[in-house]
């Protein structure tokens, strides 16, 4: 059957099971948009291409499926770069289709031409330019395969206009058959060794990361932790994979981690790290990080192992696969350990928890940002999908919202992209129209992609935005307070729009809370509203995120808030 490139594009997407595309049209994409007009694929028209990528990213993180972006050439393509780099650092499977000028014009500085393949080479898992229409279908399928397999990541496919207009014979791929889940692989010699290490260990800790969420290994992790009675700490990217309500939970480690998670890491004699990459925000000084521990590291990406932290047992394997065979090994060996066996270790942890709990100074005068998140957590019973912007809002969300399930906490971990939260919330809400999706934002970062409010209003995507408004770029201000003698260079954001009026101008509901006793009512009203909402909480201006490890410092040396010091 002879088809045009643009028709093949739509058919290949449908074969990949794609129902939703986040995009923005332009000159070289007219053929594709004409085909979209006739197809039943849902297209969400964003207001800026960066928003499209973050939305596809949020969609992917919430649903576990590949997110899809469609943008035009030149500025449309270059506007996606931040979003792509963001997905790359957090290993999120998305496919970004960029229009390109006709092949004959490539390299001539044609109107709206940009070498997007060259520009995105270091921030994509892989990228392609389709030069011939007969390569189109195969390239699209390969792009999806690369995005979702192994360590996932963003893939970009550049589509010159003439390739979309050319015709070729099109044979659809035979439909894929669902492969049955194979039984767990027999445990390797290394797994047997790890089994012995756990049996001998007196102070073991499990450190997990985004790999557990991406690898859908949350259930297997829970089984392993509960069977071995190992306390669990998880990086920002892995929050929710292990339930915060479980007694084995230690909270997040690292720069703004809990005191007890950092102390447990520092004092453990066995560290089993699964699906994480030992980011500097987690380890602090590498010289002092978990130096008493034998270290085991499981990751699907060999390049993550022995990159920052040298380990005793490197295991290059998919997290889920590794945990399944390990759990089977534990079952076959009838491995049992009781809380009583680990009494000494749990007593130590309990004491750390008692001495320095995660807390803040409550106030009747001024709204504490942590109080807003705690109240939000209570009102939503911890069941909302939470996206965040970047900075203090993000750290308080990670600390004070208690996640019991994976894919519920959606945050820009690696790149730290301000402006991520709102479009990501839109993407997550598109994936789950019936769930409550809340973006926890700051007054700085919400302004970075606030235009996407129009997208939310147009498609009736009822995301709730909680702005913790302190009139500062709070995290930078915090560093200036602590390390630069309060010289607040360029961090005052007092000149901000009235967020209630902004919401109203976009045609939706805006609410404001000035005092602590208004906070709960504002949240309740906002969460119950059927459409998108911006809630502006005027919070304590100079609140800091604690505990805090100095950049480059040892994680057991934490600066604590007043309230944490007994």
């Amino acid at each position, binding site marked *: 059957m002879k088809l045009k490139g643009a028709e093949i594009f739509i058919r290949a997407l449908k074969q990949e099971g794609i129902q939703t595309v986040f995009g923005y049209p332009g000159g070289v994409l007219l053929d594709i948009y004409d085909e979209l007009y006739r197809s039943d694929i849902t297209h969400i028209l964003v207001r800026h291409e960066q928003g499209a990528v973050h939305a596809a990213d949020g969609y992917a993180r919430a649903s576990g499926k590949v997110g899809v972006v469609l943008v035009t050439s030149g500025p449309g393509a270059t506007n996606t770069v931040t979003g792509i780099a963001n997905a790359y650092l957090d290993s999120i499977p998305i496919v970004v289709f960029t229009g390109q000028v006709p092949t004959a014009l490539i390299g001539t500085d044609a109107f709206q031409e940009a070498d997007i*393949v*060259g520009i995105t*080479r*270091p921030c994509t*898992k*892989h990228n392609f330019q389709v030069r011939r229409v007969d390569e189109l279908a195969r390239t699209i399928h390969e792009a999806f395969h*690369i995005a979702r397999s192994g*360590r996932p990541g963003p893939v970009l496919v550049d589509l010159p206009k003439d390739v979309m207009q050319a015709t070729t014979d099109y044979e659809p791929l035979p439909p894929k058959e669902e492969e049955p889940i194979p039984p767990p692989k027999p445990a390797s010699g290394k797994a047997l060794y790890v089994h012995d290490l756990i049996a001998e260990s007196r102070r073991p800790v499990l450190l997990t990361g985004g790999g557990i969420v991406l690898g859908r290994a949350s259930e297997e992790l829970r089984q392993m932790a509960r069977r071995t009675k190992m306390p669990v700490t998880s990086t920002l990217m892995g929050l929710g994979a292990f339930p915060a309500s479980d007694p084995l939970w230690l909270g997040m480690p690292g720069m703004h981690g809990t005191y007890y998670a950092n102390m447990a890491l520092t004092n453990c004699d066995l560290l089993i790290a699964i699906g994480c990459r030992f980011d500097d925000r987690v380890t602090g000084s590498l010289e002092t990080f978990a130096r008493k521990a034998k270290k085991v590291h499981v990751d699907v*990406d*060999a*390049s993550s192992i*022995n*990159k920052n932290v040298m380990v005793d047992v490197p295991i290059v394997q998919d997290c889920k696969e590794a945990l399944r065979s390990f759990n089977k090994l534990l079952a076959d060996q009838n491995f049992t350990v009781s809380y009583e066996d680990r009494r000494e270790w749990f007593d130590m942890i309990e004491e750390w928890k008692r001495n320095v709990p995660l807390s803040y100074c409550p106030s009747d005068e001024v709204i504490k940002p942590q109080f807003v998140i705690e109240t939000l957590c209570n009102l939503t019973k911890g069941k909302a999908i939470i996206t965040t912007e970047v900075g203090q809002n993000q750290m308080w969300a990670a600390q004070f919202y208690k996640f019991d399930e994976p894919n519920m906490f959606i945050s820009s971990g690696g790149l730290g992209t301000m402006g991520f939260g709102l479009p990501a919330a839109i993407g997550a809400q598109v994936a789950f129209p019936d769930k409550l999706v809340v973006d926890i934002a700051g007054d700085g970062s919400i302004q970075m992609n606030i235009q996407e409010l129009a997208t939310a209003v147009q498609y009736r995507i009822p995301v709730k935005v909680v702005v913790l408004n302190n009139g500062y770029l709070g995290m930078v201000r915090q560093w200036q307070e602590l390390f630069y003698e309060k010289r607040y260079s360029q961090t005052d954001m007092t000149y901000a729009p009235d967020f209630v009026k902004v919401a109203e101008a976009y045609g939706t509901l805006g609410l404001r809370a000035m005092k602590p006793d208004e906070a709960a009512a504002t949240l309740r009203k906002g969460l119950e509203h059927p459409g998108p909402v911006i809630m502006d909480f005027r919070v304590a201006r100079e609140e800091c995120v604690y505990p805090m490890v100095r950049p480059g410092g040892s994680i057991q040396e934490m600066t604590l808030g007043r309230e944490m010091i007994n």
Partner: protein
Amino acid sequence: MEKQKKEHILSLLVNNKPDVLARVAGTLGGRGYNIDTLCVDATLDPKISKIILSVYQDQSAITKIEKQLLRLIDVHSVSELTETETVMREMMLVRMKLTEKNKADIALIIDTFRGRVVTMNGDSCVIEITGTKADVERAIESLKPLGIDDLARTGIVALERIK
């Protein structure tokens, strides 16, 4: 020991496509590693190219480089070639100005390094010298005082002695 920098030779099998060399170079350059020598051509299978490159780094950096290169979709394999298990050669073309005074010395050097004169144009000649990197560098040192006009080196090519 791990921290000691030395020359490491990596041999890569990659897809023979535009962009692939840029990906490989970017993977090293983006992390601050310089490619000292580079040699690329198609293998017996025209769809696959072999890249042989040398990097002056310590062993732990080389291990990281190898792993990062293997993440590239277009890279099929990366192996480090060691001197004992590999034959390594480099070729150099060097153009000399000939004078009555230096002719005999140049002929002696060509003989010593088992080189040959590829072409001769009036008072100018191009000499080809093949050998280990050290041989080539010694030849340059010997020829320098005699007046090198210009030179070009291939960088290292290397092949395992046995499979």
